[in-house]
Every structure is written in C-alpha cells, then in structure tokens.
C-alpha cells in the first residue's frame, strides 16, 4: 500500500473555475508526477472551501495550509518547496486563516463554537465521488431512518428539532411533512427547490456543487417519512456545474442501490429527476415552480389548495429548499436535541449566508441562528473593504430590507428580523460602504423586480413599472417629493394586493431605504 503524505484539495466551483482552477489542477498533477511524488501526494477535487474572491484555492493537509490566487506558474515552486521539501511557501499562503474555518470559541471571540451542519462536507470531500461521501457519513442517516425508524418517528424528530424552511418563509419543516404524511393518496411527490434566483445568493449552488449526495440522502428520508416515492429537483438553468454533479451523484446512488427499488431492504422505492429551469425569478415561488415542472409558464397558483394537498399534477407535493433538506441527515443521525443546541429559542440550527459587496473577504459561511450582523460582517467578512465605514447591508436579497448601523447588534433569525420589518430571506448579505449611492441601489432593485414580475396579477405588473418610472425620475434629479411619497404608496398597495410574494416583498427594500436614507433620497428631488 502506498503511504500518502499529503492531500492537496483543490476547490473546483463556479468561482474558482473562472479563475482557472482546471489549468492549475492539470499543472499540479503533472508537476507532482514530474517530481516523482505521485505515490505520496494525492490531489483531490472538492467544492467551495468558502473563499470566493481569492482566485484558485488549494488546501494542503494534514497541515491545513490555505494557498490562494494560485496560477500554473506557481505550481512548480509550490510542489518543490511544500510537497517535496516540506517548507511552507509563505508568499502564497493565505495571510490569516479565515475565521469561517476556525470553529473554536477561543479563536473567533464568538460566544459558542460554530457548527457546520449543512456545509459539513463542502470543501472537504470530492463531490463527484460517492465513496468519499459515504466515508464522510453519507447515507448513514438514510440507512438509520429506513431500517430502524417509522415515518412518524422521523417526522416527530424533525418537528422536535424545530427545523424551519431556509428558503425564506421559515415554515416548520416537520409540520409540513406531517401534513403531507396524513394526506391519503398513493401518489405523492417531494420537490427540492433549487431555483435560487435571489440576486446575491449562491448558497444552494455551492451546497449542490460541494455535497450533492447530502441532498439525495435528505430527499430519500423525506420521501420515506411522507410517503412520496418520486422526487424532483428543480434547478436553475444557469447552474451547469450543479446540474452535472447532481446528475452524476444520482446515477452513482442508483448504481449503489441507494435510489431505486427496495432501498436498504426496507421495501421503500424512491427515485429523483432533475428538472432544469429556464430563467424566471418567480419560479422560486413554490406553486409557480410546480407549474414550471409541469412544462407551463411559471405563474403562481391560487392557495388554497396548498401543494401539500394538491400540487404537482394535482397530487400532494412537499416543496423544500436545498438548505432546509441538507439539515435532515444531521438531525436523524445525531438527534433533535443535538440540533437544538445551536441557534435561538425560536429558530434552531444554523444558517448559511453569502457575504458580498464591500467587505474584505466575501464568501460563503455557516453560522448558528442568532449571529449578529456585526459578527457576520466584521468577524467572518473581515470588515469593510479599504477601511471605509459601514453604510448599510441589503439582507435577504432583492426582496429583503436595507439594514442600517442600528441593526448591527440585532440577533438575526427568521422570527426576530420579522419584528424589525426585515427578513432573513435567502441569506444573502450585500454590504455597502459609505460611498454607496442608495438611490442607485434602489433603482437596481426596482428594475430587477420590473424585469421579473411575471405579469399574472395587475398590482405587480403595473406597480413595478410605476416604481421604476418614479425611481428613474428621482435618480435623474428630475423627481419631486411627491414621487418619493409615491414609492411608499405604490409598494404598500402592492403588499396588500399582489398575488404572490414577489409583488408583496417590494415594500421591504422601499420602506427600509426610506427609513434610513430619507434625507439622502429627498436631496435628489426638487
């Protein structure tokens, strides 16, 4: 047997591929072979390690050294110095190990250890290898659930854990599953919503790219608990790599007997189909998504009936977000009590965030519910870029609210933020520094909604168009204070009368920007 001295993990995800990760990988493998180290050094592909703006990232284990901004030109030096001679190349090393990887309380200054539940394997295993997923506890929870638990025991555990929907609505997952399990119908479906369209959000993409097997396992458990034997993953058409990896993972799972008939000898049959979206933001809404799977225009449906009773092709359908589902194996394997150790009283567990905009280190993080915006920006995001001052953060994507400095110390979870007329939404945190023009930002958000309004209901179709007219006038310094009032009036009407959350959410960015920056906006009008 060969003695492997070092493992070199190379992050192959959407961001690093742009930076040339494939070329670096080739160079690395060639150079290792050239220096005769192929028996001792293993190069492994992995998903995102959480660093999104530092080019190609390598991690060398067992030392746990992070190298960033690597190009093929640096590879020979790196191989010779570190992998052959064992000398760390300080010049290429990440100056400070990012806080998001340091999970002990001593090092972060945070109150508790930061758990990784959803992202546990992301950046550590090769997402294209089912064996590695299995070695990292993959499918163990499914085995436990299918061979030793009854469906209602699983539902009770998920309910007790207090897991809520991570796509934004925060509906209790256990309750949803319970309702679905009680509907008497031989045909039921479980749908995973991976139509991540909220601007600035790419957490689901990186979960899918980093650990696709976790999602498959979660859907098997969800199907078994609710009586659904067919799963669909509706995934954004733009996410080529996610689709590719998920399809490979599904094929591998089938060949291992983890999907198909009589899984784990339990008599339970289950399979998954991947559906590719075609570019419509409104399809993130569950009933619009269902319409789209049926091959139609993605218009939202009337509720009730809810998908739980009549969803896909009129059958009971459970729709869960990628991140929500990815929590399930941990709950089944380690129990609800363990899960509840993290988070706040009303929202247990963790939340995955993407931190973007004017921060020093943008990226993907997982922290427990209740972490403050201050900790996220200054501990995990490395503070504001170029030493500037914090102006505000747009939290929850375009359908979220601008949060000013007074919100920095509010504990962020789904319930708590709602009390402040804000929303955690999809977990996108776009940070803006003091130089940001708020009118311009609002203009970008409103144009986005006008483009994505599906045209189904009048308040949203016309409301978004009127809002764009108003903000364009204001931005061109041709508006009046009446136009500013119009922004509030129209978005309030839309909140009360729009058919689906798309039109109802515009009030959040509009009212929050006026709350903090009314003077700045009024200064632009006559």
């Amino acid at each position, binding site marked *: 047997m060969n003695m492997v001295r070092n493992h070199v993990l190379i992050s192959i995800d959407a961001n690093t591929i*742009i930076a040339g990760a494939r070329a670096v990988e080739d160079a690395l493998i060639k150079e290792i072979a050239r220096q005769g180290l192929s028996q001792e050094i293993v190069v492994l592909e992995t998903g995102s390690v959480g660093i999104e703006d530092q080019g190609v990232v390598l991690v060398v284990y067992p030392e746990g050294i992070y190298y960033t901004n690597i190009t093929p030109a640096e590879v020979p030096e790196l191989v010779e110095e570190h992998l052959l001679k064992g000398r760390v190349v300080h010049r290429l090393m990440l100056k400070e190990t990012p806080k998001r990887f340091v999970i002990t309380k001593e090092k972060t200054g945070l109150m508790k250890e930061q758990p990784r539940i959803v992202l546990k394997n992301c950046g550590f295993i090769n997402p294209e290898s089912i064996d590695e997923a299995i070695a990292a506890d993959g499918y163990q929870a499914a085995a436990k659930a299918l061979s030793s638990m009854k469906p209602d025991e699983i539902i009770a555990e998920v309910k007790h854990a207090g897991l809520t929907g991570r796509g934004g609505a925060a509906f209790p997952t256990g309750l949803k599953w319970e309702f679905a399990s009680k509907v008497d119908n031989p045909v039921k479906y479980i749908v995973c919503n991976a139509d991540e369209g909220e601007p600035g959000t790419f957490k689901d993409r990186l979960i899918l790219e980093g650990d696709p097997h976790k999602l498959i396992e979660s859907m098997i458990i969800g199907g078994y608990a609710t009586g659904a034997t067919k799963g669909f993953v509706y995934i954004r058409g733009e996410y080529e790599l996610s689709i590719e990896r998920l399809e490979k993972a599904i094929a591998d799972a089938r060949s291992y007997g983890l999907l198909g008939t009589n899984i784990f000898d339990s008599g339970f049959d289950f399979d998954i189909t991947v559906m590719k979206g075609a570019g419509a933001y409104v399809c993130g809404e569950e009933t619009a998504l269902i319409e789209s799977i049926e091959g139609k225009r993605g218009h939202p449906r009337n509720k009730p009936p809810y998908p739980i009773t009549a969803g896909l092709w009129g059958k009971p359908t459970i729709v869960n977000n990628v991140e929500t589902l990815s929590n399930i194996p941990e709950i089944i394997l380690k129990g609800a009590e363990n899960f509840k150790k993290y988070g706040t009283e009303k929202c247990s567990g963790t939340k995955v965030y993407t931190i973007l905009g004017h921060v020093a280190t943008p990226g993907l993080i997982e922290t427990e519910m209740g972490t403050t915006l201050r900790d996220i920006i200054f501990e995990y995001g490395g503070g504001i870029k170029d030493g500037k001052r914090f102006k505000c953060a747009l939290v929850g994507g375009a359908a979220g609210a601008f949060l000013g400095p007074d919100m920095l110390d509010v504990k962020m979870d789904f319930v708590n933020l709602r009390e402040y007329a804000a929303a955690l939404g999809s977990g996108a945190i776009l940070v803006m520094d003091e130089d940001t023009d708020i009118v311009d930002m609002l203009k970008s958000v409103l144009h986005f909604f006008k483009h994505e309004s599906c045209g189904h209901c009048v308040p949203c179709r016309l409301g978004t168009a009127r809002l764009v007219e108003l903000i364009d006038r204001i931005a061109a310094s041709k508006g009046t204070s009446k136009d500013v009032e119009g922004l509030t009036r129209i978005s309030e009407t839309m909140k009360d009368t729009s058919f689906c959350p798309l039109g109802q959410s515009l009030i959040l960015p509009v009212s929050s920007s006026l709350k903090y920056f009314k003077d700045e906006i009024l200064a632009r009008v006559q």
Partner: protein
Amino acid sequence: MSDTDTNHECVCAQLSEEELYPRLELIIEEHRNKPHELIMALHKAQNLFGYLPRKVQQMVAEGLKVSLNEIYGVITFYSFFSTVPKGRHSVKVCLGTACYVRGGQQTLEKVGKELGAKVGDTTEDRRYSLDVVRCIGACGLAPAMLVDDDVYGRVKSTKIMEILDQYK
C-alpha cells in the same frame, strides 16, 4: 449521453438549419406525447438551433401534444428562450445587485459601445448578441460577464475587448 444532450454545444454555426431537423426528430422522440417535458425539450431544441424558429415550435408542438399557442406562451415567458436568431456568441453582462454595486452597469455600457449594440441586439455580422442577466451566482467575482458558457469575473473595462476578441 446522447447527441442531443443539453450540455452539448450549439452546432448551428456549422450546419444549415435544414440539416438540423433530423436531430430535432431525435429530441422529440425522447419526449413524445409528454407535454410536461416541454421545457426540457425546448432547452435541447434551442441548444441545437441557437433559437426557436416557428417550424421548430410546430414540430415540438406536434410531437409533445402541446398546442402551438401554449409553446409560444412558454417561450416568451422564460428568459432562456428566444424566437429570433442570436449571434454566434452570446455576451451577457450580469446586473445582479452584487455586480451592480461593483460597477456592472459601467461594464454593460462599455461592452455595448465596443460592440455597437444595445441590450437584446445582435451585431450585424451575427458574431455577438448582447444581453443582460440577473445574477449568475458568481457574486464573489463581481462584476461578472458571460461569453457563451465562459464566465469572466472582476471585468475591467480595459480588458473587455481582449475578452471579446477571443470569440471569432
């Protein structure tokens, strides 16, 4: 994986439209009489032709048992689909919030000026089409731009021509 797989590159530049129809038949065969697979079938058809001409729509309609009017409704609803021919290379500038805040609008203006095309237009030589996309999930590298399937991050206006020139 079959010839008609969605990940395959558009071959519309090498073959005439007439030569593509037998391939379309193969796609339709996979989805025959399955109206709910319309979107998947349209993805594949568009990959083949580069756009969805009326004749393609009619063939898909017959094969999948969906009315032409419904197909038109679906095509015009989703931003992925187009009924007009596109350039050989699609240039898409991201204007998602993260790119916007880091200068995506300036990138778009510069690209438009260099190509002499407005958003939605195709250049006269049919080399490029210019479009705007809303967040491609490469926010860490904002501002981002897509040329065909290649993503370019942290696009600087001085680099734009260099990038575009690679696509003949």
